[in-house]
């Protein structure tokens, strides 16, 4: 079990998830540094957030990538589930956008990594990726070429980024807070579930 490369399964698994998050954050930061307006369209986040993210140093990105609240997760779950369940489902087009090579590769890596880990352990993947178990079960059943289709013409509603929870985290980092303090608050917040979701359930 992973002895060949000197890492056990869980260690490799953690590295995978952290690496994905870090890559996603740096992609967002690079896009924000190049052109804020374009990045806001491409990632579907506010410009206010992008201005903050553009100033983040590498250490802060490493800190953020350890926490599921600041994670890159599939945003629109309902239409995603519909896409995975029904082969004929055509999601509504919002606008055409061409993905840069880096972003395309990141999305590809992200989805395949999530699928591979869900094949090992659905529950743990759900916790770590902050994704519903039903979505992961659907993802396992879906053939790989279907997922590639999903990634190749990745529409904005299938973007791999959760916008809701990262604003405050970025704000804290920008305020040059103590690293331990930020880590403490992020750990606190990792057990939090949104109040609205609780009401719906």
């Amino acid at each position: 079990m992973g002895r060949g490369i000197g890492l056990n399964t869980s260690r490799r698994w953690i590295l995978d998830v952290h690496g994905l998050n870090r890559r996603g954050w740096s992609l967002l930061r690079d896009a924000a540094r190049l052109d804020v307006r374009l990045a806001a369209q491409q990632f579907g986040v506010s410009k206010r957030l992008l201005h903050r993210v553009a100033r983040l140093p590498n250490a802060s990105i490493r800190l953020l990538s350890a926490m599921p609240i600041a994670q890159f997760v599939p945003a629109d779950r309902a239409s995603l589930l519909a896409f995975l369940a029904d082969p004929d489902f055509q999601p509504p087009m919002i606008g055409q956008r061409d993905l840069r090579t880096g972003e395309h590769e990141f999305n590809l890596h992200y989805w395949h990594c999530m699928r591979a880990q869900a094949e090992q352990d659905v529950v743990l993947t759900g916790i770590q990726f902050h994704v519903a178990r039903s979505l992961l079960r659907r993802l396992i059943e879906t053939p790989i070429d279907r997922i590639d289709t999903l990634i190749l013409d990745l529409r904005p509603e299938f973007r791999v980024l959760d916008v809701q929870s990262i604003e405050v985290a970025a704000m804290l980092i920008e305020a040059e807070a103590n690293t331990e303090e930020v880590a403490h608050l992020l750990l606190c917040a990792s057990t939090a579930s949104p109040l609205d979701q609780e009401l719906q359930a």
Partner: protein
Amino acid sequence: MNLRERMSKNITRAGTKAGDHDLLAQTEELVQSGLRASAVVALTGLPAHTVKLMIDRDVGIRRSGRQPGSIERLQDDASLRLHCSVFVHAYLQARERAQPFLDARPFVRAWRTLAARAPAHGVSADLYFYAIQQVELGHLALERCTVCGAHFLRITLEKDVKRTLIGDCFMCSYRYRTPGRTASWSGRELLAQINRQN
């Protein structure tokens, strides 16, 4: 018949089954996390002899079977309480069935989750096991703060407790001070902003 039953019945020529590998891999991970033998036995149901042999092989030194934690320790140490809250939250999320409460798989999952979120937590696995036991006994309860939505451990024990921690969730009571500003933010305000739906 699963591995734990076959081993407890002392069947010598039992064939290997598919589920055995999972159980042994989980046991190995528990042993490597530094959990003491009696806790590993309680979680996996393997015979104590086998578990002790694995600890001798992988860890090298066996801990005493003494209970490491206490309610007082949880009361005094806020950081320990925070980590236990995160652990218990992940543990309850990772459970697929309510029974048996002590099961190896959710414990391993919660241990991995905590290792991912706080790599240098430095809390021994024994203390997490203690927290899980207390939750099962009903002395601790994982509650959700109605203001910020975060989960925290509340001590429900009425007797033999010096101070009760009934009241505010300790995450909400946290004060965050920004260097340039005079007024500090409460953790409650921060978390409310995190959980705000856009």
